[in-house]
């Protein structure tokens, strides 16, 4: 691949940069020592960055998979004839989940679940639900009435209409919701370090507590890159999954 084309593929070089920093941060110790001579050690060393990343990614995955499953299930229910009456209630609950500040959710979850990753996963789930639910409802409602009428009139069962027509046609919009949700979750998970979860946010909070600016920079750069790479990966996935004939998903 030639250099100009590489520059046009931001996913490739941001991912390469992210991986290089994940493994090679200790090699930058001389740079940090030169910039911040009074900080010892110059690079966060309470755990490896790979270890932090895997723990961080695991929590995001757990929270987002749960939010995706629950969000799509609730959206399907809210758009069936039997569930239409619950539509407003479901909207309200999801909006309330979104309105709570993440720090408050964490603080409330700790007494119930203890310190560690569990309260963070709960917060990620509540936070991630609304974008997925909202997009899934919008996507399912955007399926043209004539398409559904034809499907029903030709003898597709309710389950067949959902599986073969509604979900595939709503998929691009649902995927856009998952993209927003996961990107938010990566940032939110970093706050989980305040209740004992191991994440790329851990160096940030250690650095803030111990007045060690290099740690803050290292954690913040890796967290940001993680979010950017994931977002770009979703964008690439959306382009690949764009079904022919369906309306393009919002960016």
């Amino acid at each position: 691949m030639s250099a100009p084309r590489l520059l046009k593929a931001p996913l490739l070089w941001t991912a390469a940069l992210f991986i290089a920093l994940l493994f090679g941060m200790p090699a930058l110790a001389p740079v940090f020592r030169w910039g911040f001579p009074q900080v010892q050690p110059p690079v966060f060393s309470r755990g490896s960055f790979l270890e932090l990343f895997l723990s961080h990614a695991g929590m995001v995955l757990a929270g987002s998979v749960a939010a995706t499953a629950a969000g799509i299930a609730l959206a399907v229910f809210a758009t069936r004839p039997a569930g239409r009456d619950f539509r407003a209630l479901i909207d309200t609950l999801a909006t309330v989940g979104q309105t709570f500040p993440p720090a408050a959710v964490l603080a409330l979850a700790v007494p119930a679940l203890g310190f560690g990753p569990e309260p963070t996963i709960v917060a990620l789930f509540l936070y991630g639900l609304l974008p997925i639910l909202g997009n899934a409802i919008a996507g399912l409602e955007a399926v043209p009435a004539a398409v559904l009428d034809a499907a029903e009139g030709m003898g597709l069962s309710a389950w067949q209409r959902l599986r073969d027509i509604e979900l595939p046609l709503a998929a691009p919009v649902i995927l856009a919701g998952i993209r927003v949700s996961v990107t938010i979750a990566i940032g939110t998970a970093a706050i989980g370090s305040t209740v004992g979860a191991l994440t790329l946010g851990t160096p940030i909070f250690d650095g803030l507590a111990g007045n060690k600016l290099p740690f803050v920079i290292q954690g913040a750069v890796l967290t940001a890159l993680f979010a950017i790479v994931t977002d770009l990966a979703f964008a690439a996935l959306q382009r690949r999954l764009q079904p022919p004939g369906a309306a393009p998903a919002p960016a």
Partner: protein
Amino acid sequence: MIEIEHVAKVYQGRRVVDDLSLTIPDGALCVLLGPSGCGKSTTLRMINRLIPFDAGEIRVGGEDIRRVPPEELRRRIGYAIQSTGLFPHWRVEDNIATVPRLLGWSQQRMRDRVTELLELFRLDPETYRHKYPHQLSGGEQQRVGVARALAADPAVLLMDEPFAAVDPIVRDALQGEIARIHRATGKTIVFVTHDIDEALRLATVIAIMERGRLAQSGVPLEIVENPASEFVREFVGREAAGLKSLALRKVSERLQPGDGAAGEPIEAAASLRDALAAMTARRTDRLPVVDAAGNPAGVITLADLVR
């Protein structure tokens, strides 16, 4: 045969279909005609149980439709609608094979059937089978929509204003194709429209509806020449009804023996309206008539048209 007996549908306290009885014989092309809100679409959608009815009985092929599971009933009845309802994420061949797939046909049989139907609608199978609906023109989409309705070779075909959304030239071509396919397949077709000219062109039987009730049913000529009520007279178009009836009658019904006319002859099978148009265009009051083989058959005059 479709038998509709004393059927009623109440929707929010209003009788949208009121004591409707109508028998549609096998092989008929029955047009349900009327202004919007007269209950014609509701009636059509009751035949494949998309809308439940509150009273009466509907039988298709002698069988009470409420005794057949709705999905099974719908797979036996073709269904085509105005905005086609083609599945945008499926190729033409997958759209057409929707019902055959539900019925578990083999791949080979589905492929052959798709080829056959595309040819029936004069769409080149190899060009069109792999296209997506958005790559087709409005007229092509509508052809694929009707092909899809015919895929599993149903005895009955329901069409809900299928050509209302296409431009007049395409509509004219599609009407011609439906008439041709109706003649070729002998299907029983129930066709909803609010367009009297479309009805007169296609129908073997017309059922005019007014506020949920049957205003009149009969062959097109009878509707035009003997309207049963002021409503029907109004709907058929008063004075314009004379022109419509000319369109339904043939030159052969009025021609006289003799050879007292000159110029380009008209065929005996042509409509009286065509004869009138030819006279007007040529500024003459008489035309020579020939039979299908081109042999002189007589003369038709302006006076014969209004006899």
